[in-house]
């Protein structure tokens, strides 16, 4: 079983890194996420040495990009995942990862706390839904994410209940667009 923790705590950790370069907060994040990133990279085909090296870079990037983390659109775990995924494409597949244009909060404004809270709750619910999926279906999704399936092999109907979390993120995006005007 995974260690019990409160995901909104990680958000506070991120803020401490962003605002005060807090190494204690970073050490705690590192302790929890680094071994998971390493496992993800090894399952994606990296050997232990490469995975170790890439994980250190992923965690350093997390520190470096702390100001870009938006808790109304992603949990910290999700954000760590996207950094690890990009490192995987770069180091394992030796390809560039084109990124979309993004909407970013300015220095003056922050996302709504209610949006942050509901997004974190949706993320937890998604985690539970994923764990409750039938074994076969879950395996397919893992294969898709750990790199064994091509896009044409991914079934259109994944059976993932993504409707609610998508609507939450969409709402947060609309607010961000409004704030940018």
């Amino acid at each position, binding site marked *: 079983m*995974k260690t019990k923790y409160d995901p909104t705590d990680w958000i506070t950790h991120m803020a401490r890194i962003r605002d005060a370069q807090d190494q204690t907060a970073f*050490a705690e994040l590192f*302790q929890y996420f*680094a*071994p*998971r990133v*390493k*496992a*993800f990279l*090894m*399952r994606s085909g990296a050997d232990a040495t490469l*995975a*170790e090296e890439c*994980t*250190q870079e992923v965690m*350093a*990037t997390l*520190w*470096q*990009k702390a100001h870009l983390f938006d808790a109304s659109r*992603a949990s910290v*775990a*999700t*954000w*760590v*995942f996207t950094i690890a*995924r990009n490192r*995987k*494409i770069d180091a394992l597949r030796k*390809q560039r990862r*084109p*990124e*979309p*244009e*993004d*909407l*970013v909060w300015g220095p003056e404004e922050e996302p709504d706390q209610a949006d942050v809270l509901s997004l974190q709750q949706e*993320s937890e619910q*998604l*985690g539970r839904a*994923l764990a409750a999926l039938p074994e076969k279906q879950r395996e397919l*999704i*893992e294969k*898709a*994410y750990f*790199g064994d*399936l091509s*896009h*044409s092999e*991914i*079934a*259109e109907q*994944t059976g993932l209940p*993504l409707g609610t*979390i*998508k609507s939450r*993120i*969409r709402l947060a995006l*609309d607010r961000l*667009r409004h704030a940018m005007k």
Partner: protein
Amino acid sequence: MQNVKHHLTDSLLMAYSAGTLPEAFNLIAAAHISLCDECRARLASFDSVGGALLEETDAVGMEDGSFAETMRLITSGALAPAPAPHRLSSGKSVLPAPVRDYVGGDLDSVKWQSIGMGVKQSILPTSKDASIRLLFIPAGTAVPDHGHRGMELTLVLQGAFVDETDRFGPGDIEIANEDLTHTPIADIGEDCICLAATDAPLRFNKLIPRIAQPFFRI
């Protein structure tokens, strides 16, 4: 761009999120998402699946001294500075920022190559498992009838085109596979600029374009 009607499929978004698409498809997905908040939100929900899987993965222990090494990476400046994220260009440019990266500038930097009937193309450099190019189709011009061996994604950046299935305007992406043979025609109002990615060579149904195909890599 809030009028997008034709979106990325779930399987493409999931593969983009997982990082398993060919580079050319990654680029067209990034370009579409730059123009479409609906797919941006859908992508973020697929990223959440990745986050949830990451948490559930059995952890693998880090080496001794790993944290100190990471702090050294941060403080020594050995880590390349993270590239600044692409800020939203809010429609001032025809090419979304990720495409500008591959062109090396905006529309005026594109090195066009004529492929007949006023149609021009510019192949962008990506990994070889798929290819991607910009297409310029003069208003009212038809691109020859063609089928596809693999998958072809076409994103409209300016103007519009119409084919047997529907009309595609700015931000719309058409996803064509082996079942579709179509003759896209650029809308009469404006010259059409598209981004087209494919994981196999196109197949033309008329003799001349088929002979020309190897030369033009179309």
